[in-house]
């Protein structure tokens, strides 16, 4: 027996799979993973979706989610094998010695109870602290996590605080019973970058000050590099590489790790603006029906043929609304849209078929952007039929060509969307847009729902297709790394206004306005100590003001 706080040995986890059209069968989703974690250390579990990182994290609590079962191995916490303790043993363990921070705090909190009651519940239930001590502890944690008015913060209900604050409250909840181990499951993934950095700094400080051991699960290597001491890279339930953070980031041994580290390193040379933009949006002001305020204020941008305009902003900045206005789904209150020299009608119903053909759209969630009851052939073939009147063999031939263009074979032509992976689905959506031979494609967060490596592949594909088809992209995203990789010009949006607009080199280089500076400096970088630098820099600046 060593002095490790958490010792996972040859962990095996099984689940029941339900392949379509076949009887259910048992499969193994984690194949013998081992690691140890000492007190006060942070281990980052990283991998793409389906790698088993959350499953392993939950197994540290002795829990298998949704039909998942721990089929083999041992999980030692504080010197005893929790898998042998039975339900009673687990009940004593969870919430007292081991706690959990979920990805979506908004869904994890009970909206009907005050935060204080929920934050102190486990500590009181397990008799770790008396009620008054637990509440004092919670207030101290609120203060440590940088929450506003720590004394009264606990009196609020979950809906009365912001997403970032709620995620910090969740961290307070997990730390309140003074556990020995905390499992953080993608705690910052759902947050905007500018919020993420605050939460990340708060979590890191809280871990250091309370001296707990932590498992930090994420798909973002740059984030995990900031908080963890060691990193374990997982893929399809197997351990790929396990080492110190420094070693994984600076000298990765495995090809897969190297690919993860070098992701987002696409270089894209900026093209100069042309005199005739394909799309000119001027003075757009828009609001949703039945609401009293404008979501877009006087937005004007140009998109040049064969180039990419990235519209960047946090959630609620109005970037998706701009796409709705351009497509005609939301007629603006003021302003106009000029496309290829002609004025587009503000409302979708009054646009000609030619106008519709030339502006195509790709969505964030490829899952719901395709009719689940249509085959890939029908999905890609319909625009061909609709705009060009292609039928039969001619249509099928063109569909096959398009499938080749998106680097998928024609074997996919009779498949249904449910039989495709996330990246393949997005590729089919791209092919559907290309089928119309558009001059411009609106890409609404097309890579946000994808794993980094898959997203990289999609971005490369989009860039290649731009060269071949000379199509312009209006690329909506919150991810600045994506912007660097793909944009020719950039519009930064904040609260419905364009706060910065111009060629990429100009927008991404100083002098910055305050908001762009904040946004740019919040993007996690793949290097050690980045978080401390940024925080120190900001403290210095605010002290200087």
């Amino acid at each position: 027996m060593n002095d490790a706080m958490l010792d996972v040995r040859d962990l095996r986890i099984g689940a029941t799979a339900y392949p379509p059209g076949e009887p259910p069968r048992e499969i193994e989703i984690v194949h013998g993973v081992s690691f140890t974690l000492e007190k006060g250390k942070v281990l980052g579990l990283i991998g793409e979706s389906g790698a088993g990182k959350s499953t392993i994290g939950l197994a540290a609590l002795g829990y298998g989610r949704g039909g998942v079962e721990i089929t083999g191995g041992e999980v030692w916490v504080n010197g005893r094998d929790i898998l042998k303790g039975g339900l009673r043993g687990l009940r004593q363990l969870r919430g007292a010695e081991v706690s959990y921070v979920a990805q979506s705090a908004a869904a994890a909190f009970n909206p009907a109870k005050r935060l204080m009651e929920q934050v102190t519940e486990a500590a009181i239930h397990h008799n770790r602290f008396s009620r008054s001590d637990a509440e004092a502890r919670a207030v101290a944690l609120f203060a440590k996590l940088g929450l506003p008015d720590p004394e009264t913060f606990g009196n609020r209900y979950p809906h009365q605080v912001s997403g970032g604050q709620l995620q910090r409250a969740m961290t307070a909840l997990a730390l309140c019973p003074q556990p020995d181990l905390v499992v953080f499951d993608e705690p910052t993934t759902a947050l905007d970058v500018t919020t993420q950095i605050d939460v990340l700094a708060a979590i890191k400080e809280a871990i250091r000050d309370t001296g707990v051991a932590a498992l930090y699960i994420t798909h973002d290597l740059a984030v995990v590099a900031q908080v963890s001491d060691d990193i374990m890279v997982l893929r399809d339930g197997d351990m790929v590489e396990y080492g110190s953070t420094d070693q994984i980031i600076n000298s990765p041994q495995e090809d897969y790790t190297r690919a993860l580290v070098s992701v987002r390193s696409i270089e894209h040379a900026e093209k100069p603006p042309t005199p005739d933009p394909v799309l000119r949006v001027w003075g757009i002001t828009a609001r949703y029906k039945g609401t009293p305020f404008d979501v877009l204020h006087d937005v004007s941008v140009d998109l040049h043929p064969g180039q990419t305009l990235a519209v960047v902003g946090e959630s609620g900045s109005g970037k998706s609304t701009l796409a709705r206005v351009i497509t005609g789904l939301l007629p603006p209150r003021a302003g106009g849209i000029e496309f290829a020299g002609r004025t587009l009608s503000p409302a979708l119903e009054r646009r000609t078929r030619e106008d519709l053909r030339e502006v195509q759209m790709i969505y964030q969630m490829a899952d719901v952007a395709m009719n689940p009851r249509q085959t890939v052939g029908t999905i890609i073939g319909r625009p061909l039929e609709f705009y060009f009147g292609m039928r039969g063999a001619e249509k099928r031939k063109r569909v096959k060509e398009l499938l080749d263009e998106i680097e998928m074979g024609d074997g996919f032509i009779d498949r249904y969307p449910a039989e495709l992976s996330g990246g393949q689905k997005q590729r089919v959506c791209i092919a559907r847009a290309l089928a119309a031979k558009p001059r411009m494609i609106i890409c609404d967060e097309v890579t946000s729902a994808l794993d980094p490596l898959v997203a990289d592949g999609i971005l490369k594909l989009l860039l290649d297709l731009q060269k071949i088809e000379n199509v312009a992209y209006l690329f909506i995203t919150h991810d600045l790394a994506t912007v660097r990789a793909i944009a020719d010009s950039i519009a930064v949006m904040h609260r419905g206004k364009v706060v910065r607009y111009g060629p990429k080199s100009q927008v991404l280089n100083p002098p910055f306005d305050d908001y762009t500076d904040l946004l740019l400096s919040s993007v996690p970088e793949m290097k050690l100590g980045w978080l401390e630098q940024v925080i120190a820099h900001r403290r210095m600046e605010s002290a200087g003001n």
Partner: protein
Amino acid sequence: MNRIPFAAAVGLVFTALYFLAALFAPLLAPYGMAEVVGGVWEQSSSEHWLGTDNIGRDLLTRLIYGGRTTIFIATAATVLSFSTGAILGFLAAVLGGWADQLMSRTVDLLMSIPTLIFALVVLSVMPVTVPMLILVMGLLDSTRVYRLARAVAVDINVMDYVEAAKLRGERRGWIIFREILPNALSPLVAEMGLRFIFMVLFVSTLSFLGLGVQPPAADWGGIVKENKDGIVYGIPAALLPAVAIATLSISVNLVADWVLNRTTSLKGGRG
């Protein structure tokens, strides 16, 4: 296709039996439909397997022909109610705005009047013929289908793939029949089984009250009505159509449950 569960298999067998009997009634029935072949309320015998009715017609023959009428009317009314209800419901969901309001409030108005009383009023002023019965039953029931279809379609209408079709410039017909209908089909098909049974009960009730199928044509409700006085004398003739209605209801419901189970577990996938 997975194995059919036992309950569903039983349901399928009985449902098929009833429909086949209805289809081939003239071949199966031992006597003519309105032919008086024996005494009043005879016991079952080798000539009359189920005995005779209140004026001496063969009860088995009456039941087979009665099933034919009942099942035909119920099927036709179900088809009518589904085509009207589903199309109007989808249309309301796709159009939205005042068109949706107008249709939905009209349906609310219709639904606020008890269906049976509404049907009785209409049928007492209109000539009671089979097409009229089908029309009244189908249209009254379509309000329920409209509700379901609209609720399902409203959810589907906001999916990105429907928006993509709108952006492509597709007409309403394509959006309703090619984008929404295939995805709304599973709940509608399951509902169809249940509504069919309500139709059987509805037409039987109307006939029992004398405003449904008119004599001498046989139907299950009518047979109950004709023979109900026999119950006082211990003659079970009136109970036989009731047994037929009950077994058909249960077997169709078993099938509908199975369809429902199969389709709800395949959300978004293909069925």
